[in-house]
């Protein structure tokens, strides 16, 4: 006989409120029904009362963890509509900050995962390592979390050669720290028992249900928006990190290996960064429609912007990766036990404030 248990909006494992009604039969989950809307702020309607420069700051605040990449994609859309050519140095700086964001987001997630297992020291260590990345962002961009460096046409601040050398030093230190915690995560019996074979999403399912990011790559589909070569990604070698199994362990390893990959990308970029301007002049108002995509820590982000030449934009539509990852979650849950639900929900890296901007 079926019981309905709420996996409530408040849960120690979730960073943001998400409600799932779990239909259980004797500890096995049969079905899950989502309810969203706890943090719906209606940010897309603000496009009708704030002009396009002010929208950069608003769009940054859709999500705190991946804010720089939201602003980057929005600026790419408007620059595409108006035909503005962003200087190369600005492209490089934008991508350096985006990769730093990816590192801090994955470290945050790693801490939450360790906390979900009850390994509180590991949680503290992951967040301690993350503090080094926050220090870099504070010193180079001005704020720790929402760094506000993007503007239409380029970036607002430059990084001096001393700062760039310091960033490389911090990247090296981060790599050593990660090596120390890698063994704890990958060789632990409890972690393996609770994630291997749990929450399996097959290759076919992941593709059809529209999964994005580490969800898709953990199931063997090698798709990453950075392969399209937007921004400064065309100047570096890049190959997506893919794992075959499709269970929670595969997704964990994808994110962990992406941390190493980000450190490598930052090093490559700083070695190749050219001198030059940091912003291009912007004149006039945009007209037309455009779609831009980029890769956030959680997956593929898509922006649709439509403008008619007025002071305010007609429509800004944001499709965030967690929005696309909710149907795969609903497909992963049936068949697992109730005690596995927190780990599975956390393995998709839920960012509900992005979902419900």
């Amino acid at each position: 006989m079926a019981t309905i248990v709420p996996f409530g909006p408040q849960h120690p494992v979730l960073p943001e409120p998400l409600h799932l009604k779990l239909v259980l039969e004797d500890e096995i989950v049969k079905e899950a029904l989502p309810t969203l809307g706890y943090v719906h702020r209606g940010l897309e309607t603000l496009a009708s009362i704030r002009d396009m420069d002010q929208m950069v700051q608003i769009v940054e605040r859709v999500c705190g963890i991946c804010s720089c990449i939201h602003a980057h994609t929005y600026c790419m859309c408007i620059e595409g509509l108006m035909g503005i050519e962003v200087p190369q140095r600005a492209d490089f700086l934008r991508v350096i900050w985006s990769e730093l964001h990816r590192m801090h987001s994955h470290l945050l997630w790693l801490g939450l995962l360790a906390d979900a297992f009850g390994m509180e020291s590991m949680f503290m260590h992951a967040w301690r390592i993350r503090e080094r990345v926050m220090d870099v962002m504070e010193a180079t961009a001005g704020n720790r979390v929402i760094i506000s460096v993007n503007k239409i046409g380029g970036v607002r601040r430059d990084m001096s050669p001393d700062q760039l050398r310091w960033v490389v030093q911090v990247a090296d230190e981060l790599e050593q720290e990660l090596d120390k915690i890698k063994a704890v995560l990958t060789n632990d019996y409890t972690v393996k028992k609770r994630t291997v074979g749990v929450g399996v999403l097959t290759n076919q399912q992941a593709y059809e249900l529209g999964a994005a990011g580490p969800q898709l790559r953990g199931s063997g589909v090698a798709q990453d928006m950075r392969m399209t070569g937007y921004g400064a990604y065309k100047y570096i070698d890049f190959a997506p990190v893919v794992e075959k199994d499709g269970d929670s362990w595969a997704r964990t390893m994808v994110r962990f290996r992406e941390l190493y990959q980000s450190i490598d990308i930052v090093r490559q970029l700083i070695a190749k960064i050219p001198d030059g301007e940091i912003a291009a002049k912007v004149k006039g108002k945009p007209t037309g429609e455009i779609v831009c995509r980029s890769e956030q820590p959680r997956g593929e982000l898509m922006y649709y912007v439509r403008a008619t030449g007025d002071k305010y934009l007609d429509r800004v539509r944001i499709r965030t990766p967690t929005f696309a990852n909710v149907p795969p979650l609903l497909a992963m849950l049936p068949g697992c036990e109730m005690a596995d639900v927190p780990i599975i929900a956390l393995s998709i890296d839920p960012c509900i404030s992005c979902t419900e901007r």
Partner: protein
Amino acid sequence: MFDMTATVLRNFLSKTHTRLYPFQVRETFENVRGNLDIRIEECIMCGMCQKKCPSQCITVNKDAKTWEVDPYSCVYCGICVDHCPTNCLFMHKEYRKPAKIKENNQQLQLKGPEKKKKAQE
């Protein structure tokens, strides 16, 4: 088994990763966007900061010669500082300290900027 002993001894004998706040305070970095403030004598009351602010937290009253910011709505983005024509807006290095009463940062201009003398025709 002995890996754990080695780790325990190493952690025991090395110094802590945390600092003893409030006795030890971390020094702030340069160019941090802290509290917003204005050098009011240089302000020309153009209202540019009010127009550009994304959260609409600045009010400039040209007749009463006041400039006011609501520090609880301000998102500390620094757009106003970038667009100020006389560079009289600046951001401190430190963040705002906690306060017991909520009040806006209002500045009254008693003496305006010196009007530059026009070049002799």
